[in-house]
Every structure is written in structure tokens, then in C-alpha cells.
């Protein structure tokens, strides 16, 4: 049952990813990305990471996709989609490199963990309480650094905006 659900969702995620990369329209790409992120949220819940599943919906499917859609709306999608002659072999080269990369990772996965499928410990419940306990005790320093990073990003975005206003 869980396996069937996984396979169906994996197919949706794969198709959404391919659609995102190949879509000509940037808005369609953003919507495909939204589908992909939503499927990932379900995966997180299937993997006992309930808190991360909710955060995935709020942060990625909510904030980031909306941000992308705003910017696409402001600058009008595909500007300057001129095909340059330097880029003739890009598709073939990228596809070959991608296939090699997947083969490499697949080989690594097959060699290392195909023999041992047992769960090492009891599955940890990733609820708000457990995540909060870990985040505010063991991982307090990374948490504070992340807050500093968020502050820096916010100040940077606002400063960039004021600089652009000054130039007008």
C-alpha cells in the first residue's frame, strides 16, 4: 500500500520535474514546481517528518513559489529567449552528463546499501515537540546562525530596493 502510494507520487514528482525544466512558459514552470514541492511534503509525512512536511508546504509551496510567480509577473516571463549558436550542443551534452551522473549515483547506492535494508533504530517521530527539543538544545548554534542569515537576507533585499530607488 505504502509502496504503491510511493510509486504513484514518485511518478507525479518526476513528471512535474521534467515539465518544469522543459516548459517554455515560466509561469507553467513555477506551477510544475509547486506540484513537485507538494509531493515532497507528502513524502516527508510518509517518512515520519510531519513538522518538515508542514514547513515544506508553508515555506516552499507557499512563500517561495509565490515569490517566483511575483517576479515572473513583474518582469514578464521569458525575456530575451534568443537561441545562441554557441549553445548548439548544450542539450546533447547536458543529457549525456545527466545520464552519467544518475548512473554514477545509482552505482554508489547499489554498492553501499542494497544489502542492508533494516531500520537502525526506532523511527523517530518528527513532530513539533521533538524537532523543537533538538533545535533548541543540540542545534542551538546552527539555529541562531540561520536566524542571522535570514536577517542578513532581509536587510540585503531592502537595501537593494532602496539603492534601486535612489538611482531613479
Amino acid at each position, binding site marked *: 500500500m*505504502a509502496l504503491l502510494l*510511493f510509486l504513484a507520487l*514518485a511518478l507525479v*514528482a*518526476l513528471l512535474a*520535474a521534467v515539465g*518544469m*525544466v522543459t516548459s517554455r512558459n*515560466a509561469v507553467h*514552470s*513555477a506551477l510544475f*514546481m509547486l506540484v*513537485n514541492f507538494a509531493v515532497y511534503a507528502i*513524502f*516527508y509525512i510518509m*517518512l515520519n*517528518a510531519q*513538522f*518538515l512536511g508542514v*514547513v515544506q508546504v508553508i*515555506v*516552499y509551496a507557499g512563500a517561495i513559489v509565490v515569490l*517566483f510567480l511575483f*517576479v*515572473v509577473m*513583474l*518582469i514578464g516571463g*521569458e*525575456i*530575451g*529567449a*534568443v537561441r*545562441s549558436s*554557441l549553445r548548439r550542443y548544450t542539450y546533447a*551534452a*547536458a*543529457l549525456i552528463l*545527466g545520464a552519467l551522473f*544518475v548512473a554514477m*549515483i545509482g552505482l554508489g*547506492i547499489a554498492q553501499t546499501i*542494497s544489502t542492508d*535494508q533494516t*531500520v*537502525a533504530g526506532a*523511527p*523517530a517521530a*518528527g513532530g513539533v515537540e521533538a*524537532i523543537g527539543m*533538538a533545535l533548541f538544545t543540540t*542545534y542551538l548554534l546552527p*539555529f541562531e546562525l*540561520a536566524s542571522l*542569515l*535570514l536577517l542578513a537576507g*532581509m536587510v*540585503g*533585499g531592502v537595501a*537593494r530596493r532602496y539603492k*534601486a530607488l535612489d538611482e531613479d
Partner: protein
Amino acid sequence: MVPITYYLILSAVIFTIGAVGVLVRRNAIMIFMCIELMLNSVNLTLVAFANQWGNLNGQIFAFIIMAVAAVEVAVGLAIVMAIVRHKDTTNVDEIHLLKW
């Protein structure tokens, strides 16, 4: 229960789709979306391993990655907007100020 190998292979394939997209697409916003795709597939790997080993370290790691990704998108899209105002293009082939 789904074996962890399936999750790893799925996230490897989606990571590669994102990497191919970064190489193929010329629109700066599309490249950002592909980077988000890659970050997400790494998150899936981390959460799958956290479930496999029965501790929360991978989930915390994925949480921090989400925070970094949010900041990266905000700042990156601000930069794209600034470039569009100056050069009127999002094609990365035409944005080569730092390349000689």
C-alpha cells in the same frame, strides 16, 4: 514500508533533472527554479536517511537547508530584478559582467 533505496534513487533522478535544467535553460529565473529542485531532492535524501537511522539529525539539517533556500531565493530574485532594470534581459548568456 518503502525501502530507502527508492527514495535515494528518486531524489538522485530529480537532482539530475535539476542539474540538467541549470545547464540547458538560459533564463535566470528558470535556473533559480532548477536550483530549488536540486535543494529539495537533497532534503528528501536527508529526511529518508533520518528515518532510516531513527534520529532527527537529518531532519534538522533539512530544516536549516530550507531556511538557507528561502534567503537565497529572496536575495537572488532581488538581484535578478536589479539586472532586469539595468540590462532588460534575464538571459544569462548576456549577463557577463564578471566574465572576461
